[in-house]
């Protein structure tokens, strides 16, 4: 049994890290009242830019490459998310439709560029991957040490840190209070002098940046190249984690870890004795079924921000 856990826990954490980044991006956007179905497309963009930058700069930047690639992916996806912000905040577009467009556009631009640059459907493999660390002291704890703290991807550590930082920002700072008030009752926030449009723009751009990091982490830890199926539903799974986590950063992190666990089981169930008889498909559909159940209220009430999806039009009541 312990062997199984030694095997599954590291895979769980590795598959959860990209979901954590992206789901927390989703929390920022939706807490401000802007639906972001475009997480998938933003992740695709991040995954692509991460690999592209890594391939082109690995020689000059050496071991720093994957980290700088994360930053570049963050910037590009944040810029890409601005499109969604302009459409859904300033132009009052249907936010779901705009998100669908972002998803299609992200994948199309990435694949178009891959074919243009590499002349084939996928990129080469990267050489400089995100490194794994042993965490000093903690790794020496019996049983859980080797399980959680040996050979952890650096990005996983950052992901968990980001979840706590996001919690602090959203719940303990004036900006967070503004963010939440804009998503709940934009008119009341406006009367108090909060700039609704500005806060929403910032939130959507942050969500783009985090989804970009999420994508780049995925491509630089799990696939190590980029092709049409690199990001295949991770963005939507992150959206699911956000909902399952009740629009709370730590809840989203917990849900992402849980979904990572489901993915790890799906990958490795055939090699685990007690699970070998259960078809992998059950593990594959598990996160999605769970999200539907959560939404249906079977797993405790989860309520979205009140003004989610409504453009704010000054002077309208």
């Amino acid at each position, binding site marked *: 049994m312990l062997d199984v856990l030694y095997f599954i826990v590291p895979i769980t954490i590795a598959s959860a890290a990209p979901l954590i980044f992206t789901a927390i991006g989703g929390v920022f956007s939706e807490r401000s009242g802007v639906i972001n179905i475009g997480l998938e497309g933003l992740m695709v963009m991040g995954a692509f830019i991460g690999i592209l930058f890594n391939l082109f700069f690995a020689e000059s930047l050496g071991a720093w490459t994957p980290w700088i690639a994360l930053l570049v992916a963050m910037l590009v996806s944040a810029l890409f998310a601005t499109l969604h912000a302009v459409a859904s905040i300033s132009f009052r577009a249907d936010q779901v439709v*705009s998100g669908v467009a972002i998803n299609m556009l992200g994948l199309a631009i990435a694949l178009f560029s891959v074919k243009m640059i590499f002349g084939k459907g996928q990129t080469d493999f990267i050489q400089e991957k995100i490194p794994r660390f042993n965490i000093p002291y903690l790794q020496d704890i019996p049983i859980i040490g080797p399980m959680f703290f040996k050979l952890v991807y650096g990005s996983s550590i950052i992901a968990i840190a980001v979840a706590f930082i996001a919690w602090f920002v959203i719940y303990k700072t004036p900006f967070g209070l503004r963010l939440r008030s804009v998503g709940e009752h934009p008119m009341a926030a406006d009367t108090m002098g909060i700039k609704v449009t500005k806060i929403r723009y910032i939130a959507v751009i942050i969500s783009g940046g985090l989804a970009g990091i999420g994508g780049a982490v995925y491509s630089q830890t799990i696939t190590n190249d980029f092709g049409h199926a690199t990001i295949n*539903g991770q963005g939507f799974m992150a959206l699911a984690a956000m909902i399952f986590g009740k629009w709370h950063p730590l809840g989203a992190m917990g849900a992402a870890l849980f979904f990572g666990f489901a993915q790890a089981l799906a990958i490795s169930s055939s090699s685990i004795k007690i699970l070998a008889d259960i078809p992998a498909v059950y593990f594959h559909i598990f996160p999605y079924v769970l999200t539907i159940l959560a939404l249906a209220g079977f797993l405790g009430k989860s309520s979205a921000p009140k003004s989610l999806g409504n453009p704010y039009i000054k002077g309208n009541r």
Partner: protein
Amino acid sequence: MNIMSNKMINILVPVISIILGLLVGAVVMLISDYNPVTGYIALWNGIFGDSYVIGETIRQISPYILAGLAVAFAFRTGLFNIGVEGQLIVGWFAAAYVGMAFELPKIIHLPLALLAAAVAGALWGLIPGILKATLKVHEVIVTIMMNYIALHVVNALIKTISGGGFKTDRIHETASLRSEFLSNLTDYSTLHYGIFVALAMVVVMWFILEKTKSGYELKSVGFNENASQYAGMNVNKNIILAMVISGAFAGLGGAMEALGTFGNMSSMGGFTGIGFDGIAVALLGANTPLGVIFGATLFGSLKYGANNMPNAAGIPVEIVSIIIALVIFFVACGYIIRVGLIRLRNKKEAK
């Protein structure tokens, strides 16, 4: 004199969106060091070049019409069905299964296979419909999740019925939509009778919405739920009905692929994209049956025509996906185009 009536503006918004999409597409080609003129000529030839490609283009349009109808029908009742993709996948599988598993005379087999696809899609739409009607769960998220459930479940089913393989056996000739006549007419393309099924469904949608009592109720719920409730309509029943009918259209879209184009189903690494393009089709067609034909013709043609671009102009096919996504984006931003047009009109009127 009124230069631009409101109706005119309603038609102009999608037209301007298409033009903007094509223009930005041209800019993308320019930046990427491709020649947009040769690109668009290759696209044009890929759509209308000879009778073979015309046949293939029409073949591509049929599932697009059905996916567009599915999205549009739900929209009319105020529901956003992003789950067309999943409903299409289960419909594809159901049709492929009925097509290969039974041996029946054509007059029973083909309608049965089509019916199976419609029922499978309808069931996949029923779940979000019930959840929306009874528990007020937002249909967008549920349908997205149902897409992935469909993908994984169908892949597992294909594996099971093919004994560990990656595709189902071919359907029997008696369930096929393939047509020798249409194929010969278009220089041996894979054009099949599906286009007539799709067009018939356009009429069905028009008939339901415009000529029946439930259609009136469905539209009424879409306009204003509370008013409909007050007028004595059963809003919950109508929400479920709308999702079921929408799912049935989507399922039939899957049948086009199962019984016409491919004749089987292979396990899938990702989505077909037809369901998502259906959103574009419906949006562009303003959710009307006739508009859907227009939208499906445009996007289906672009999608098939794009296949000619790599060979004839050296441009990756994805350029067309970029253009389609941009068109959706611009249609979604219709508000700002509308504002621009109205300003333009007022300025002209002032003169």
